[in-house]
């Protein structure tokens, strides 16, 4: 398949990407291209200009310190999955990056692209929301709770570039994913994080947008065991239903994945 014609530009810095974005309306950022190129080949996206940010050095780093793991937006999934520092600080995050797609996808896809895209079945949004991460852009810092606004939509404005995702380091955390056997995307994935001052639980894959599960958070705050969430069900009427699974099935998966995640973290 061949995309519509476009002009390709490579940015060497965030400032240059910003200038290029402003110069042409409807131009788009290209990071790993593992979502955008597929959409362009299907002709679902038709940007007249692509600004490649994947080679920007100031967007490619992992820094652990000050109680957080900060990851540059252009960092590929493979680098997060294999980082010894991430594995030590937030093992669940390294694990999550290592179960995204397949090795070739992980060699190219980036954390910034994944979070900006907010695919309902993507993995990173679960970690971002459950860990209460901060999404830093060229303009401001956005809290995870304010960032994911709906299916494929986020609080990002036109011309806004994610530069970093900063994850607070929890006491304990785990991510459990039930992958679609064909696509490897999450049918349901649950990230559980235990902090000194509370528990956060986020589910992806099951509904149109990643969401927190307050009933589970409250139950786990009292009793951090799999039994505490075993009888808590999310409302099936809010879940996705498609050829891969019904809404009831996905609602059930959320409870099962939550139980497994707590068992692993506890």
């Amino acid at each position, binding site marked *: *398949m061949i995309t519509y014609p476009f002009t390709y530009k490579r940015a060497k810095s965030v400032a240059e990407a910003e200038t290029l974005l402003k110069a042409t309306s409807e131009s788009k950022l290209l990071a790993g291209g593992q979502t955008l190129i597929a959409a362009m080949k299907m002709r679902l996206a038709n940007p007249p200009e*692509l600004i490649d940010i994947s080679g920007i050095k100031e967007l490619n780093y992992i820094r652990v310190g000050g109680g957080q793991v900060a990851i540059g937006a252009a960092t590929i999934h493979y680098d997060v999955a294999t980082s010894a520092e991430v594995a030590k600080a937030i093992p669940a995050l390294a694990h999550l990056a290592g179960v995204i797609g397949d090795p070739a*996808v992980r060699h190219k896809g980036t954390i910034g692209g994944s979070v900006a895209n907010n695919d309902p079945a993507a993995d990173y949004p679960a970690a971002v929301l459950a860990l209460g991460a901060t999404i830093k852009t060229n303009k401001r810092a956005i809290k995870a709770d304010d960032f994911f606004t709906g299916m494929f939509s986020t609080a990002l404005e036109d011309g806004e570039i994610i530069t970093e995702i900063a994850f607070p380091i929890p006491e304990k955390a785990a991510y459990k994913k039930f992958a679609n056997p064909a696509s490897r995307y999450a049918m349901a994935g649950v990230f559980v994080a235990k902090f000194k001052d509370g528990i956060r639980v986020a589910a992806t894959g099951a509904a149109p947008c990643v969401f927190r599960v307050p009933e589970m958070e409250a139950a786990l705050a009292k009793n951090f065991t799999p039994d505490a969430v075993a009888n808590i069900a999310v409302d099936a009427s809010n879940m996705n239903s498609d050829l891969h699974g019904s809404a009831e099935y996905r609602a059930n998966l959320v409870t099962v994945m939550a139980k497994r995640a707590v068992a692993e973290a506890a």
Partner: protein
Amino acid sequence: MTAVSMTVNGKPVTADVEDRTLLVYFLRETLRLTGTHIGCDTSQCGACVVHVDGKAMKSCTMFAVQAEGAQVTTIEGLAKDGKLHPVQEAFRDNHGLQCGFCTPGMIMTAVDMIRRKGAMDRDTIRHELEGNICRCTGYHNIVSAIEDASKRMTEKVA
């Protein structure tokens, strides 16, 4: 049109391409390296896997211009001095292919996983093959071939 330069299988190449030219078409049609296949064209099957700067990537999900300045290796670049690469040998010895359509991508993926992981058990190999689809073999002999190659190659180094 944009002039793009990269090193493919050790040889420097330069060509004028449209910005929208996918790397796989650049390899197959501009360079006539038709060993890299297009199976699905939707990033799923792995028939198009090549190495870009040493890492396995799906060349159908990448533009040629993104590989500017890169070192690209395709299936044609594995054999050295008329001798098959150990992974190619192992695929032959273990009957790791039937029609052969998926094989270039399987082999490029296998070389990449052995580089990263060394000798592997069958379970690891199956997980590592998540991005490669084969319509013929049922995977059994592909896994055997990679297991065999991973042992041969790591023994040689040790």
